[in-house]
């Protein structure tokens, strides 16, 4: 029988190893799997390469993971946001690496990784410093840069509802990187606001087919990052 439900966030991340590459969903706080990230902080794996659009806010979630010195390198498109102080400080001190990728290229590299496409060409970043040292090539009179697919050992993703097959639906703009990150990791770990029975999700409306998901954890009342930040909370609590 197929049952991807895991009892706790702690159990779901227990095999994450030092040096792993981890994709973390979310755009700002929307879709950020904060309980899974906190479980990863408790777990303590180090020297991680994290692929995520931002670098977190305040001292919770992704920012707390970085502050806890577990992240060796960030691959992202926008490493600074309002209330983002942790990453800048470590970056200025040379304590964390940054691979800056245009947001659409980041999304396409993740999608390519999940789809078995090792490399593709995009016009984004041509004639800019972000294309320096990369292979350029003309197609139909326009110049493109070659970018590589990215895969990860683990993805941490948040969704709205899931069934035991790992079929997922998302909530509004919290969908963002979740569906493509699930495709690109060896092990996708998903926290869901609610578990539903098999068959409850309309087969026409499932956004992430269960084949892309390995573990599902129900977190009924996930923390809101912006609230924690405004209360100046820190993780570990």
């Amino acid at each position, binding site marked *: *029988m197929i049952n991807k439900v895991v009892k706790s966030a702690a159990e779901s991340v227990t095999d994450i190893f030092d040096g792993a590459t981890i994709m973390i969903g979310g755009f700002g706080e929307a879709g950020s799997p904060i309980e899974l990230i906190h479980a990863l902080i408790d777990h303590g794996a180090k020297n991680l390469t994290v692929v995520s659009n931002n670098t977190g806010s305040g001292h919770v979630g992704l920012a707390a993971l970085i502050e806890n010195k577990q992240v060796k390198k960030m691959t992202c498109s926008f490493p600074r946001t309002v209330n983002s102080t942790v990453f800048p400080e470590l970056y200025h001190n040379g304590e964390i690496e940054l691979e800056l990728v245009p947001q659409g290229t980041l999304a396409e590299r993740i999608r390519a990784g999940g*789809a078995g496409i090792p490399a593709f060409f995009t016009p984004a970043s041509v004639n800019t410093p972000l294309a320096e040292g990369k292979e350029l090539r003309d197609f139909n009179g326009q110049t493109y840069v070659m970018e590589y697919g990215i895969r990860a050992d683990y993805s941490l993703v948040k969704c709205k509802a899931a069934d035991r*097959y790992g079929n997922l639906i998302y909530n509004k703009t919290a969908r963002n990187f979740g569906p493509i990150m699930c495709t690109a990791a060896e092990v996708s770990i998903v926290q869901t606001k609610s578990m539903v029975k098999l068959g409850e999700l309309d*087969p*026409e409306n499932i956004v992430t087919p269960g*084949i*892309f998901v390995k573990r599902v954890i129900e977190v009924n009342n996930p923390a809101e990052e912006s609230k924690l930040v405004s209360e100046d909370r820190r993780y570990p609590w």
Partner: protein
Amino acid sequence: MQGWDRNQMAQKAALDIPDGAYVNLGIGIPEMVAGFVPEGREVIYHTENGLLGMGPTPANGKEDPELINAGKKHITAISGACFFHHADSFTMIRGRHIDICVLGAMQVSEEGDLANWSTGKPGTIPAVGGAMDLVSGVKTIYVITQHITKKGEPKIIKECTFPLTGRKIVERIYTNLAIIDVTKNGLFVKEFAPGVSYEYLQQNTDAKLHLYDD
């Protein structure tokens, strides 16, 4: 010498499909495999035209022309199934998300090359479908085929003479005469059909067959 019949061949392959596997079945004997998976194993069938969770053939009169499989046959969808478009479907295939694909064959080489889409003869219309994507993306490729052609020619041979579908990708071959593993050290007979001798099998195979207890 018949050995196993088509149902038995499908059944043999079915025994090798583990609980929880995501499986794509080709047209012909491969699609019969689903009917023989032992009870208690939950297996999810993928059809590349856009469905994960393919169920059995619908009852007469319950066919939906917009619910078909890759062979264009009427099917059903199980509880927990989902529909998606072709690019997402081949993300599953090319991205190594599907565990097992069972395909038919015109020829299989001793290195695991597969030819199953074209004889390459002039004047024939080539048609490839998703076969090349499947063999290059699915984790494990099984082949089910009659051991020899209707004309009596061996299909398991040193080198394929027909155009390839993929190179070094077949892991195991289920024929009416035997189950044969493709390994780095050559072809190994895993199981003989009742009444089939090693000598008889080798006579009908144009590549060296090894025995595991050698």
